[in-house]
């Protein structure tokens, strides 16, 4: 799928994350996290897996995370992707 418009999902609460998507020519993933030092690579792995599963090859993906678990990251990202998709 294609990131066709700006979209966001999630909250700033503890154990949650906020996802912001916007169209771009290339794929980029920016991660801000209160637990970045320990878990940056694991968050990135989950994000990459979801993006690959949805066939996303372009767009700017930005996350601000407050220690969300994998399923929360998946759910927020998928929600944002469905909001950003072409209707």
């Amino acid at each position, binding site marked *: 799928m294609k990131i066709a418009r700006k979209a*966001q999902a999630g*909250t*700033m*609460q503890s154990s949650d994350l906020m996802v*912001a998507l916007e169209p771009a020519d290339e794929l980029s993933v*920016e991660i801000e996290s209160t637990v970045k030092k320990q878990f940056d690579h694991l968050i990135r792995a989950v994000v990459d897996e979801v993006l690959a599963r949805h066939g996303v090859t372009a767009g700017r993906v930005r996350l601000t995370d*407050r220690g969300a678990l994998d399923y929360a990251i998946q759910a927020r990202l998928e929600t944002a992707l469905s909001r950003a998709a072409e209707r």
Partner: protein
Amino acid sequence: MVTQLLSSGDVALAKAFIEAQGLAFEPGFDDLVGVFEGGALVAAGARAGEVLKMVAIDPAHQSGALLGELVGELVRLGRSAGHDGLFVFTRPAHATSFEALNFRLLASHATVALLEYGGRFEAWQAAARAALAALEARRPLRPGATTGAVVVNANPFTFGHQWLVEQAAARCGRLVVLVVREDRSAFPFEARRRLVRQGTRHLAEVLVLDTGPYAVSAVTFPAYFLSRADPVAGIQMELDLALFGQRLAPALGVTRRFVGTEPRCATTRAYNAAMRRVLPAFGIEVVELPRLEAGGAPVSASAVRAALLSGDVAALPALVPPSTLSYLLSDEGRAVRARLGGAEGRHA
């Protein structure tokens, strides 16, 4: 649940609540939100453009999740309005609460801390460092040589700016010219930066960059663009300079800041004085250079704007370099001149 406070009754409640928390209620916001509990307001906050303000939480609720709820909603609303990055001014004691929400501390000075959400400073810094590295590859800095900086609005670029840059460049190994990015001036940012580039092209040691929103911007120093006197202008200009000392200068390796003496404008004069007060604490030497004068008056951008306004085109060649002159006389420049009549404020 966070709700938007839209009715005049809700706004009045928010005003009373915010003032009870020791903050000043300032009208002029795009969003005002709050959280009610048992019919009483326990948290409130507002967003004006890209700045979050008046964020207040009832002391009995401060250890919980209210700040995240409130700020999360303000960030969501801000992004919907097209603001990617958001700033918040708060007391230094509260900075860590915002850092836990992934805000990044930009500067802390006296009673104020400025934080940013959205990672834009990192992007600005990466772009600035890449430009510096490209210059370093072309023209390495002599070992032990100083990197200096000047911040200019250049509205538009004059012989005065050119002279200041030449004098400053002669006093250091490398000079970074930071053009104010804020688009509140008669001449648009892209044109101002282009004219600075053209007017300093003969100086190989000069690198022209932009300030981002991190110096003399509507966020860091709004009073610069307003014509009315503002009692908090003093605190703002010191924070603007602390941000330069704590963030911009280290990012660029700058240890000297040059500035032209200011005979006319009281705000700029106060800014220069604040520079001498604030910057040395960060290891930055402030060097004030006398302004270039012509016919007993300083060669300034305001003199150029005045000449344009009165249609005195004959005065221009004495004030601006040929690159600026040809811009002013072009169709693009003419469109700006047409707007000059309606511009307000000292530096508009």
